[in-house]
């Protein structure tokens, strides 16, 4: 199969969705600049016209609210936030309005909206240009949240999100943009709520989210060289998340590590760990391990950044702890 990069896959999903469905339009910041969207929306304004690709003023609250209203009026908007941090200015339309709408009116109408927000960190950008805030959104009933980690999922989850009758927050990570992989040419959907087993294994389960799913695969290679057979699950969807697949794996291996690109307290990893501990308690041989960011804002200087973001080695060490081995010991 043809290979595309993650960013090319996102671009193709937009192009195909816009060509196939005249209800789909884009609104948000930086849409006419190749820079803001990291190439993921390049030249869509030329192809589909600037009426359908609206590069908006920095009015996150009203722009997101307009996307909600357009969705209620029969469109399929994609509202783009080049940095997830700025989505915080749009919490009212996203949570009070879009997420509650179906419930409030007993299902008479819903908000078929994609909110695409990018985690864009590193490079000494500091605390307000680096945040991975997915856990905050995972908390909210009525809002779906997906975080693809591969090019194929980047395309398939975006197309699924566009077709979903509910608000879907699609979070992509700039650190994944250059990853390449096979991507089908046609339109296809990755079901929201379904995790993927990226590597089968017997000894330990690593549940990875977004960028950390990619790190988990690297960690699994290291563990394999040490005689440890790790199973890697790419969660892909955070809300709803695939409890069935994760619990199956937890019961099989008895040891679970959750690798989450967000903060530790009340994070996505905490939710998964709590569920595994509650549902698979009698099959666990060790406490569930969490590999997360520390509970601090993102630092700016390179030296601190290096310490801040967990690497595959942190996952390897967590696996060792789960297996009851001394960190640094050989297998």
């Amino acid at each position, binding site marked *: 199969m043809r290979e595309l990069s993650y960013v090319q896959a996102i671009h193709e999903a937009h192009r195909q969705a816009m060509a196939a469905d005249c209800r789909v339009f884009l609104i948000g910041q930086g849409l006419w600049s190749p820079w803001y969207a990291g190439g993921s929306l390049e030249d869509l304004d030329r192809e589909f016209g600037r009426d359908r690709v609206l590069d908006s003023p920095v009015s996150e609250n009203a722009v997101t609210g*307009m996307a*909600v209203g*357009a969705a209620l009026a029969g469109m399929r908007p994609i509202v783009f936030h080049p940095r997830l941090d700025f989505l915080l200015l749009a919490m009212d339309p996203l949570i009070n309005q879009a997420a509650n709408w179906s419930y409030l009116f*007993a299902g008479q109408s819903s908000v078929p909206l994609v909110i695409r927000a990018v985690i864009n960190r590193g490079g000494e950008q500091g605390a307000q240009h680096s945040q991975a805030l997915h856990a905050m959104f995972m908390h909210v*009933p009525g809002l779906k949240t997906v975080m693809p980690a591969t090019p194929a999922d980047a395309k398939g989850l975006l197309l699924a999100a566009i077709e979903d009758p509910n608000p879907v927050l699609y979070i992509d990570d700039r650190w994944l943009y250059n990853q390449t992989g096979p991507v089908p040419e046609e339109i296809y959907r990755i079901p929201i709520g379904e995790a993927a087993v990226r590597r089968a294994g017997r000894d330990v389960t690593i549940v990875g989210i977004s960028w950390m799913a990619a790190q988990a695969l690297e960690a699994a290679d290291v563990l394999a060289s040490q005689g440890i057979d790790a199973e890697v699950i790419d969660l892909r969807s955070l809300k709803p998340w695939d409890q069935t697949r994760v619990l199956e794996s937890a019961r099989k291996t008895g040891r679970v590590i959750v690798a989450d690109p967000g903060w530790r307290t009340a994070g996505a990893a905490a939710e998964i760990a709590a569920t595994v501990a509650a549902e698979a308690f009698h099959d666990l041989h060790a406490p569930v391990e969490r590999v997360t960011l520390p509970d601090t804002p993102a630092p700016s200087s390179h030296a601190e950044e290096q310490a801040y973001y967990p690497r595959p080695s942190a996952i390897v060490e967590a696996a060792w702890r789960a297996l009851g081995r001394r960190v640094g010991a050989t297998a």
Partner: protein
Amino acid sequence: MLRIRRAEEAIGEMCETGEVRCPCHLSIGQEAVAAGVSAALLTGDTVWGAHRSHGHYLAQGGSLESLFAEVLGKTTGCSGGRGGSMHLTAPEQGLPGTVPIVAGTIPLAAGAALAYKLRGEKRVAVAFFGDGALDEGSVHETLNLAALYKLPLIFVCENNLYSSHLHWTERRVADNLDQAGAFHSVPGARVDGNAVEDVFEAARQAVGRARSGAGPSFLECRTFRWRGHVGASSDQDVGVHRRGELAEWLEYDPIQRAAEKLNMDLATHCADVDQEIDRALTNARSASAPDAGRIGEHVCAS
């Protein structure tokens, strides 16, 4: 207007007796704004409201029985008993939804207007909000976006002088809400919100402008709510004693003024409306309350 008045008086009584438990924000005294604007709209246009929207719902032709059932928390309510007074919907009548987050539906109305524009439809959207909504930033963002994209949108500010218990002088230094859109090149007009024909005429012009593709307008409709911020009391705003303006405003009753101009016998009409209200209320009261087992339904659409 009379239907709105009498329906809200009935709801107010049920608030006092405790039969209605959800918070109700009554628009008694402000009926001319809803009635005047809705009269200027066509089928297919949409109206978006807020917490004080019984009037908008009824002016658009929403069912009385469904409104009563909704405030009583019955399954036959317009929102299935999920919304209560503050979350009303009448999609068939062009009322997608009303919500109590102040200014919450203003960007949504703009989004609907954008949808109509993108599809080349000659429809317009109306955002109703109170003067308190001007204290929210999203209104100012939306004014700019509506002007920028030339949206078929009418901003209707019902200036009843109060945001909850705070008089406008406690929130602003100038009485100039009709100028709210000026900075963003959205033309504004100050309208006597208790003169239904004035509201209608201003709305007719704004709707015409929107429908012709000339863009948004802002109407400041000056009015006064006869009851407190929430509930039926006429002398209390959320526990704060009200100033003495009510007596003066009662002299400018929008319904009396309209009836006088029309040479209309209000008592006869009132009796007809009351009959309709009694029937609707009887039906709403006899409807069933929701089964608690449905609590998880409709979180997501399928």
